[in-house]
Each structure stands twice: as structure tokens, then as C-alpha cells.
């Protein structure tokens, strides 16, 4: 076989040699295609798996850690919460609507594959500046795609985040997260156990979707197939819904041995992974696979990424029943093979064996690389930043309005009003607060959900930035009244083959591990997306954090909006002269420089402990985490959402005005409290050493801020609200 062939398929020469050694012969083209997709970065994690071992994945609540389709955490009452986040960046860059839609469909299948009922979706999105038409097109298409799929399949999209930074211009990030509820004893795994059990393929017919364009250059292809074009995957949420219901019905009744969704690398991945996990083998016959197009070749059928397909392992006794159930749901299901005990994945077509490879080597035999890792030069450069170089704010009013109307800070209502965030009537805190809260039917409990990552921090200091991403997520959950339970991550980076990028990756993973270890929050699932680059320029390192928290009593959940005039506003936590990496620096002074605000994990822990206790005892009316834009932006959000004003007095204590008002010091929270409760709260804070400042009261129709007795901010809530609400809308008109 000519080197061009495996190189075109993206295999390194030494990787090809490994394949030859495993097989004891040259692979044929079908086998080579199968290896090329299974040993791709996407499926094999060959550049990341070593580093990912650093992540803490254990915990007494962990029912299922990384390795399966999704992680599961014990939430009591015999229930588990099952969740995972995944990226669909590159497909979304090519076709934003379908790219995002199929991303949502894929993550949903990961959840119900485990036997869990999907109950919520979130998404973390990043685009270039909305000033550019291209980015508005991508933003519009991605949001429409998420809404198109999520709304149709009937799972509420309850939260997420959207950021706009020029580094995402040609390479938007689309990270979708799905959360499901599962009865502990109903957990299903993707295992092809039991030699003699049958392999059933169900759902969409197989077409030439998403087959790597490169393979078409290969000379082994027939003339006929030359003009065949690979096609973009198109999602079918309707069939997704039918699959979801039918599979859950079968799992509920214990009619399946194992189940696995077909995602990247399609049939190849589903067959070899289920067999490998169970230490078995499998024989399948491609003549039995329902095809959408004529004349598809074996390799096309094996690596096709057609959407809405599932693979089930079924005992012979159940075969007919399984087919009946799918028929009732209007789905095509066919038995395409059976499980064997020889560990070999054998693929037949036209009565002949077209591929015969050890399942384990396909699924888990890919080489693991430990790439060169070295600090990139930019780190020093951006680190050298002296705040005295920039002038302090003079007109705080206009600065505030500029910040509030910056798309990254402005209201995301334009996005989430396109998502059905109420279907299933379980959404207790709707999008628009720190975290979404959903109730768990048939119990007092609730789940709080959030995604967070300030990638500018991570860019400036990958380790600290990643640490902060974790605590910000935790803070968002705590401010909603929930105890953080566990994390799913989606690690978006440039090319790991560049020492500087791999260094970012390594440091970020170390940062995540450090925070998670410290808070005892395990990482139970996740996803790595490398090669997020446009002509050599990498995106900001973006380890998106999805976090799930538990409320024992959902009625005690807390939102960020100010509730009643006369209530007192309290700031917990210290403010330092920290402007590095801040929204203020970037929006007002167009600078991406300095160190991210420093994070003291011990302080953070005590803060979260106290805030959670205060909320659980029902002592506060609102709680809001202080993040992008700092204290005054957070205050504005509390006012806007509560549609009420506030009067605040601050002491500068020698701080620069901009740092005091717009700095993003960590471990801070804004509370509004009924006067009757103020002493109790103060007690709790001070007794555990959490800095407590009574800074003002709720009321009126303006936000008024005095610093050292001098009025710095005085704007009507209407004006603040208008700027914040209409910013994104204006761009998208």
C-alpha cells in the first residue's frame, strides 16, 4: 500500500506500522479507514489521555466516571444525575445550523444511551465580534440550530453562556451539555456482552454523511465513487425523539443487554467499542445495513456519520420484541450481526469478509503521545502590565453603559427566548440568573446547572484561569442555593502538536484538577477538542466547565434579582486592585494583559460555605456572583432583573476607582437581605471570617453609587436596562 493512502487518511507512518504489526499483515482499505477514524484524535484522545489522568474522578457519589458515554452522580432516593458536555466546533463552522443541531442530537444520545431520561440542555458558545457579518451569520445559525433540535425533541434548554472575542472569528466554539435523570438500577452500559447475543442497528438509514473528504482522493476508489461527494450531517430531531422514547422504553423493561449511540466514526466506533469494553468480538454483515444511497462501499458504510442511529445488543429471545417496539415507534431496526468470543470485529459484505481486526486494538490500541510542552512566549509579554499605564475612569456612568452593552456582558435573552426552556414543566429558575434550577419530579429536590469559563483569564494564565473557571461555576450554583456535586468539561484548544498549545492544555488541566481536588468535586465526563485554529492562529485556550449542583429542597432556591424596596445590600468578600484580564480593560482600553485576579481557594471555600448556609436558612432575598464587569455590573444585573433601583455607598480604601467599580476580584457575592435578617447574616459571615460589607439598600428607580461620599454613578434603571437588553438584539436585527 502506498504511503499517500494512509497519510491522506491522516495516519502517521509509525501508526501504519503499528497496524501492520497488530494484524501481522497489511490492512486493506476498509480496515485502514476504520483505523484512521478510530485512531483519530477525536476518537482516541491520543494527545490528551495521559494528561487527563490528572483529573480527579473519584468520589462517594460517583456512580459512573469517565470512560462510558456519560458520567453519573448519586443524588439519593435511588436516583442518579447523568451528564456530559461535548463540542461540535468544526461542523458548526462549516454549517452553523446543522453543525449545532447535530451537536445537540449527539449529546442527547450520549445521555439516553446510559438509560437516563434527558431533562435539560445547556450550551456554551463563543464567536468572533458581532461587528462582522460572518460572525453574526454563525451566531444566528448556531442558535437557530440548537433551538431547532432541542425544541423539537422536547428537552428544555435552560442555560449556558455566550462570549464574543476576536480569537473565535474563524473558529466558533459550540459546546453542548445534556443532563439526564436515571434510576440507579437502570444504568445501561455500552457493552457487547454474551457471545451469541444479537447486534441490532436502529434509526436513520445510512448515507454518505460526514465521510472524510480526504478518502475520496484515494486511488483505491472506483471510478463510480469518484464523483461521490461527502455530505454534511443533517439532524432529524423528530427521529431523534422517536429513538429516545423507543430506547428508553426498551431499557425500562430490561430488554437490552447493551446499547451504544453512533457518533463520530459511526458503525466502526459503536461495534468495536462495545466489543472491546466487554472483551468480546463481533460479526456484522453490511448487506443488512439499511442504506440511503445506492452503491455505498464497505468503508463508507463503516465510517459514515449519519445521525439518529443506535446500536443495541439484544439476547435472541428478545429480538422479535425489540423489533416490534421500534416498529410501533415508526423506526427501522435490523439485526446486522452477533457477538462472538474471539475478540475480533469481523465485517462481511457480499458474503465475503471485508474487514477482520481485533476490536480492542481499534478501540483502545491507538498510540498515546506525550507531546513536547513549553511555555509560549506571549505569556511573559502579556504578564508585563503596569496598571499605572492607564488612566483611571473619569465618567463612570458612560463606562458602565459601555460595559453593559458589550455583547459578552449584555443580556442573552435574544438567545434563550429562542429556546423552549420550560417544556417538561420542571424549570424553576429560568435562564437569566446565575444558574438554572430544575426540580426533580416526585421529590423535594432540585438540580442547579451552569456552564462557565472566562477564557481570557485562561489565555493570560492557563492554570489560574482554569482554577477560576471551576470556582466560578461553583459560585453560580451556590448563589442559586445548590451544593456543587460534579463537573463535566469540554477542553477546547489549538493544535497539541505545538509545544506552547500543549503547555496551555497541560496547565489548564492541572488548574482544573487543583480546584476540583480542593472542593472535592470530581470530573465525571468530558470531551477534548484540539486543532481549533485558523491559519495557524489558535483560539484562547477554553476549558469550558459544566457543573451540576443539588438542592435538597428546591423551594429554597435563590435568584439574582433584587426583590423589595428597603432590603439591604451586602457585599461578601474583598476587593483588590485587580484589573488584569478584566472586561473593563478589554472593552474600555482594548487591552488583554496582566494576570487574572488571584484566587485563594481557602477563602473561596469559606465564602461558598457561608453563602450556601445563608440561602438554605432562607435569610436572603437574592444572591449574585460577581464576575465579568465587576461589582457595578453585578449590581446593575440585580437591579435590571428585579426592575428596581439601588443606592450604594462604597469606601475606596485607596483603590483605584476602576478597580473598585469594575475590577473582577474573585470570591465575592452580592446579597439582598430583609433588615430583620441582617444581623443573623452578619454573624454567620464574620464568625467564619468572610468579609462582610453593608453597602446600601434596594429601592427607587435609579442605580446610585457614592464613593467616599462623592456620587460616581447615577443612572435610571430604564436606561441601564435598555442598554443591557437591546445590545445583542441591535446587532442581530
Amino acid at each position, binding site marked *: 500500500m502506498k504511503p499517500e493512502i494512509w497519510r491522506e487518511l491522516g495516519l502517521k507512518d509509525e501508526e501504519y506500522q503499528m497496524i501492520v504489526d497488530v494484524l501481522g499483515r497489511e490492512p486493506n482499505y476498509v480496515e485502514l479507514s476504520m483505523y484512521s477514524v478510530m485512531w483519530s484524535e477525536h476518537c482516541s484522545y491520543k494527545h490528551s489521555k495521559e494528561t487527563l489522568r490528572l483529573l480527579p474522578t473519584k468520589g462517594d457519589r460517583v456512580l459512573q466516571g469517565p470512560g462510558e458515554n456519560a458520567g453519573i452522580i448519586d443524588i439519593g432516593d435511588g436516583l442518579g444525575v447523568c451528564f456530559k458536555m461535548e463540542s461540535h466546533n468544526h461542523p458548526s463552522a462549516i454549517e452553523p445550523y446543522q453543525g449545532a443541531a447535530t451537536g445537540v442530537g449527539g449529546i442527547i444520545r450520549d445521555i439516553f444511551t446510559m438509560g437516563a431520561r434527558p431533562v435539560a440542555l445547556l450550551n456554551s458558545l463563543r464567536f468572533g465580534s458581532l461587528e462582522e457579518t460572518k460572525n453574526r451569520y454563525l451566531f444566528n445559525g448556531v442558535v437557530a440550530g440548537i433551538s431547532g433540535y432541542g425544541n423539537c425533541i422536547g428537552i428544555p434548554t435552560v442555560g449556558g453562556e455566550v462570549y464574543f472575542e476576536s480569537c473565535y472569528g474563524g473558529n466558533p466554539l459550540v459546546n453542548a451539555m445534556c443532563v439526564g435523570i436515571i434510576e440507579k438500577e437502570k444504568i445501561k452500559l455500552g457493552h457487547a456482552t454474551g457471545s451469541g447475543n444479537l447486534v441490532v442497528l436502529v434509526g436513520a438509514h445510512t448515507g454518505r454523511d460526514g465521510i472524510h473528504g480526504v478518502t475520496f482522493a484515494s486511488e483505491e476508489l472506483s471510478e463510480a465513487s469518484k464523483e461521490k461527494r461527502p455530505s454534511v450531517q443533517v439532524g432529524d430531531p423528530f427521529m431523534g425523539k422517536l429513538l429516545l422514547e423507543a430506547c428508553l422504553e426498551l431499557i425500562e423493561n430490561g430488554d437490552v443487554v447493551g446499547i451504544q449511540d453512533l457518533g463520530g466514526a459511526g458503525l466502526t466506533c459503536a461495534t468495536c467499542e462495545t466489543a472491546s469494553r466487554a472483551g468480546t468480538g463481533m460479526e456484522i454483515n453490511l448487506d443488512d445495513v439499511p442504506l440511503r444511497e445506492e452503491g455505498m462501499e464497505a468503508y463508507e458504510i463503516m465510517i459514515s456519520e449519519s445521525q439518529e442511529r443506535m446500536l443495541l445488543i439484544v439476547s435472541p429471545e428478545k429480538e422479535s420484541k425489540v423489533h416490534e417496539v421500534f416498529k410501533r415507534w415508526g423506526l427501522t431496526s435490523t439485526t446486522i450481526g452477533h457477538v462472538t468470543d474471539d475478540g475480533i470485529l469481523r465485517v462481511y459484505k457480499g458474503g465475503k469478509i471485508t474487514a477482520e481486526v481485533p476490536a480492542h486494538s481499534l478501540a483502545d490500541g491507538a498510540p498515546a503521545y506525550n507531546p513536547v510542552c513549553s511555555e509560549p512566549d506571549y505569556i511573559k509579554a502579556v504578564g508585563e502590565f503596569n496598571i499605572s499605564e492607564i488612566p483611571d475612569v473619569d465618567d463612570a456612568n458612560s463606562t458602565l453603559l459601555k460595559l453593559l452593552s458589550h455583547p459578552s456582558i449584555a443580556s442573552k435573552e435574544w438567545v434563550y427566548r429562542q429556546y423552549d426552556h420550560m417544556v417538561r414543566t420542571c424549570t424553576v429558575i429560568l435562564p437569566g440568573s446565575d444558574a438554572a434550577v430544575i426540580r426533580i419530579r416526585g421529590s423535594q429536590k432540585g438540580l442547579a446547572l451552569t456552564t462557565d469559563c472566562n477564557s481570557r483569564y485562561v489565555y493570560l494564565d492557563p492554570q489560574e484561569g482554569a482554577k477560576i473557571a471551576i470556582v466560578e461555576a461553583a459560585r453560580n450554583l451556590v448563589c442559586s442555593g445548590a451544593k456543587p456535586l460534579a463537573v463535566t468539561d469540554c477542553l477546547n484548544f489549538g493544535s497539541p502538536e505545538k509545544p506552547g498549545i500543549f503547555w496551555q492544555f497541560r496547565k489548564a488541566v492541572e488548574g482544573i484538577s487543583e480546584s476540583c481536588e480542593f472542593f472535592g468535586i470530581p470530573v465525571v465526563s468530558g470531551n477534548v477538542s484540539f486543532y481549533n485554529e485558523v491559519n495557524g492562529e489558535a483560539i484562547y485556550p477554553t476549558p469550558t466547565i459544566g457543573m451540576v449542583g443539588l438542592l435538597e429542597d*428546591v423551594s429554597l432556591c435563590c435568584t439574582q434579582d433584587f426583590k423589595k424596596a428597603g432590603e439591604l445590600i451586602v457585599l461578601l468578600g474583598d476587593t483588590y486592585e485587580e484589573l488584569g484580564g478584566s472586561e473593563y480593560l478589554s472593552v474600555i482600553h482594548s487591552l488583554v494583559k496582566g494576570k487574572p485576579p488571584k484566587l485563594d481557594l481557602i477563602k473561596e471555600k469559606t465564602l461558598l460555605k457561608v453563602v450556601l448556609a445563608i440561602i438554605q436558612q432562607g435569610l436572603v432575598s437574592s444572591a449574585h456572583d460577581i464576575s465579568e464587569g465587576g461589582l457595578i455590573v453585578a449590581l446593575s444585573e440585580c437591579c435590571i432583573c428585579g426592575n428596581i433601583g439601588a443606592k450604594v455607598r462604597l469606601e475606596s480604601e485607596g483603590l483605584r476607582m476602576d478597580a473598585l467599580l469594575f475590577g473582577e476580584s474573585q470570591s465575592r457575592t452580592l446579597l439582598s437581605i430583609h433588615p430583620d435578617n441582617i444581623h443573623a447574616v452578619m454573624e454567620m459571615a464574620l464568625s467564619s471570617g468572610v468579609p462582610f460589607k453593608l453597602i446600601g439598600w434596594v429601592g427607587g428607580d435609579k442605580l446610585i453609587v457614592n464613593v467616599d461620599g462623592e456620587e460616581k454613578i447615577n443612572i435610571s434603571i430604564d436606561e441601564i436596562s435598555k442598554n443591557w437588553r437591546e445590545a445583542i438584539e441591535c446587532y442581530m436585527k
Partner: protein
Amino acid sequence: MKFGVVVFPGSNCDLDAYHLLKDVLSREVEYIWHQAESVKGFDCIILPGGFSYGDYLRCGAIARFSPLMESIVEFAQSGGLVIGICNGFQILIEAGLLPGTLRRNVSLQFRCQFTYISTENNNTPFTNAIKPKKILKIPIAHGDGNYFADEKTLKEMKKNNQIVFRYTTPTGDITIDANPNGSLDNIAGICNKKGNVLGMMPHPERAGETVLGSIDGLSVFQSIINNLGE
């Protein structure tokens, strides 16, 4: 009294209607699969929201040919109570049980948000328990809720008091800003001449518990219950 919630392939608010009737209002309720022969034994049929058949071609266009629909049409013509919510409304229109049509929202976007609606006709089996002048806070979630009917039809409907709900401001003013989807005359819900078939875009089943932000939807179901007479 027994409620039936019809399940089409792609229905997804069936669960919510069922939950409200069973767990909140403690009424007898059953799902009815779209291929069932008949709706015998049920006193009120609910066509829930969702995306029946993916809303492909036109919302509700394919679902109306489900086997069960024939029996529902008979049920309706013989005076049985039928309420279609959101996608259910679209199906009733496609099935010819209600006049007019529902087009794409003027924004050309899906909209999920709380809306305020006034009850224009309190004299139907679905609205008799709603206090006159009371403005209901009920959420919408749809991409095709933009009601349209030609002038002749609209005149007819007005003459027969078939316009049941209209979008208003929180204070009850019928304005363009209060109209979330471009509906003709801010129409949010209509009934047939007899008044025993109601279609509405807002989701009363999503406004039945305090934790969900509104309980105004209950009065619609309470009306039905009153009407069926305990």
C-alpha cells in the same frame, strides 16, 4: 370524569398536561396513542403541544391524518370537549375543526416567554371559571403561532364570539408590543361555533404551579371541570 391526552409521534407536552391533571388537579387522565381506534369513555380530549411528525411540511399537517383523528372529529361534532394547545391547536386547524391558519411568527424565530392574555369570551366550557377582566399570565413556546384568517372568516368568528383569548400587556391593553408573533388582532386562542372545541397557542399546563411562576393556567382546566360537572 376522564381526560385523554393524545400522544402523536413527536408530541412533547403530553407529559406536562398529564402531570397537571393527575398530580395537581388529581383528576383521572390517560394517554391515548395516536393509532388507537376511538376516544370512547373520555369526557375531554387534550391535543398537547410539541412537534408532531417534526412539524415537517406544516405544523399539524401530518398528525391530522393519524387514525385517532377521525374519532376525535366525530367526538367534537357530537359536542365532546376538545382542547388543542400549541401544536394541538395547529392540528385542530389542519383537521378543519377550527377556522383560519397559524403561520410562521413575524420574527421568523421561535419564541419562548411569558405572555399576558385577556379572555374575550368567558362563556365557553374552557373559560367559564375565569373571572371577567382577569388578565392571565401564561407562557408561549412556538415558531408558528401567527394566527391568520381572511376577512370573511374573521367577521364570522367575531359574530359568533369565537375569539377566546387575545395577547395583551400585563395591564390588559391590546397593543402591537403585546403581540409576540404577529397574530391577526392579537388572537391567542379561538373556539368553534358550538364552543366545544378550543385551540390556544399559550400553554395553560405550564402555568399551574407556583414554582413555575404562574398558576393562571389552572382556571382553563377548572372551567372544563366545572363544565363536566364534578
